[in-house]
């Protein structure tokens, strides 16, 4: 009986290994380096519609991982950085005075202690979002690779517009809400000397519930809840149920040894 059990388990282990060998580990690594971008099926079911929208499906990673910076130096010229968007839809650029969920948030995105280029990019994203300028916001994404939550489109503006029109969530409002939180620096997570670092909003995403100071963790959860992005209960579900904050977060990359800033991700669900 023991021999038979041993043989059965050994055969089953070999079968599990064969299944594992069919996984494309390079593609998996790309998603990992993007901060995780495909929504796992084990993410707890969350009640609110907006959050359900976050956790279904996978993400699209457009282009390659970081190449030359899109923004150099300490001062951002939004007009100059708008070039990656080849054909902004005219009616998607309402401009000042326009009204949308993002403009009606009643949210003030305060200045934060950030490197100049990062601060300028953050400010530009927020200003365009507040002006309901969806194409303008999309134009600020890094042309060298940008991760965004699930969808089958390769055009982030089109994808966000679809989300907005479907009433699932207002991406521009969510972007502003995320940017209103406190960020934290993820320093060279690749462990390689020339690897990029990332400013990540909210800082809650980088906190490990198992090791974080409970008061700080609590404050970080409160901060996200205060933006209205998710309820406190939803956030706690993510942090305690899945072991990490899995809601919307935004990444701005700083290539090593530069003063540049690239907006590389606005993702949720993993």
């Amino acid at each position: 009986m023991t021999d038979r059990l041993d043989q059965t388990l050994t055969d089953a282990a070999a079968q599990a290994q064969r299944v594992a060998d069919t996984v494309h580990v390079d593609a998996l690594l790309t998603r990992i380096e993007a901060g995780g971008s495909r929504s796992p099926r084990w993410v707890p079911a969350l009640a609110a519609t907006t959050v359900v929208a976050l956790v279904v499906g996978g993400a699209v990673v457009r282009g390659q991982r970081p190449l030359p910076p899109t923004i150099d130096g300490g001062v951002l010229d939004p007009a100059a950085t708008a070039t990656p968007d080849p054909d902004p839809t005219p009616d998607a650029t309402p401009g000042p005075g326009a009204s949308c969920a993002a403009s009606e948030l009643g949210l003030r995105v305060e200045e934060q202690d950030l490197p100049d280029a990062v601060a300028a990019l953050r400010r530009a994203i927020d200003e365009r979002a507040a002006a309901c300028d969806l194409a303008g916001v999309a134009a600020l994404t890094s042309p060298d690779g940008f991760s965004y939550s699930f969808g089958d489109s390769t055009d982030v503006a089109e994808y966000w517009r679809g989300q907005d029109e479907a009433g699932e969530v207002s991406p521009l409002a969510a972007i502003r809400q995320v940017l209103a939180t406190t960020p934290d620096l993820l320093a060279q997570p690749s462990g390689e000397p020339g690897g990029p670092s990332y400013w990540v909003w909210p800082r809650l995403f980088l906190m490990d519930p198992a090791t974080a100071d409970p008061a700080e963790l609590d404050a970080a959860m409160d901060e996200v809840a205060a933006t209205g992005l998710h309820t406190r209960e939803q956030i706690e579900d993510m942090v305690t149920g899945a072991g990490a904050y899995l809601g919307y977060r935004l990444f701005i990359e700083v290539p090593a040894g530069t003063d540049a800033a690239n907006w590389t991700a606005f993702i949720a669900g993993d």
Partner: protein
Amino acid sequence: MPTDTQPETRGRARVSDRPMPAGPVPFRDMYDANVRPVMALAVALTGDRASAEDLVQEAFTRAYRDWERVGRYDRPGAWVRRVVINLSHSRWRRLRSEARALRRLDPEVSVEMADPAPDVWAAVRRLPHRQAAAITLHYVEDLSVAQIAAVTGVAEGTTKSDLHRARTRLAEMLDQEWLS
């Protein structure tokens, strides 16, 4: 014996008995050395490739984003395995919880849990969590008692006992299936 960040050239990669040198190592090296065996572990623990891929992605993502700290551990690969084991356990508890919730909403509905496939791993997943982890690490990754203890953070004597109990219980469960 390969280190935790050096892929084994013959057969499957293993968790090393030998501590890593102090200081962070490249994440990519650790990933390359561990992703295949960790994926096999996750396949056994979850019962399907898609769920396994999600768990492995999540575990390595956590290691990646906290690499400054995790990369300094003696065995970062063991840390990743522990995350996968814990996530698989959480996932299984959640599936059971969701099934119960659905039954409460509609007692008439028949809820099929996604997991129990008719195979030996389905039987393993019905074992107590720690026993399931021990037996899976032993057979899928060919780990010794000491190595399993290093991954799970459980004493070697307890691990030995877990393995023994797991085998005994599995033999009983499978014996019934084989006889039926």
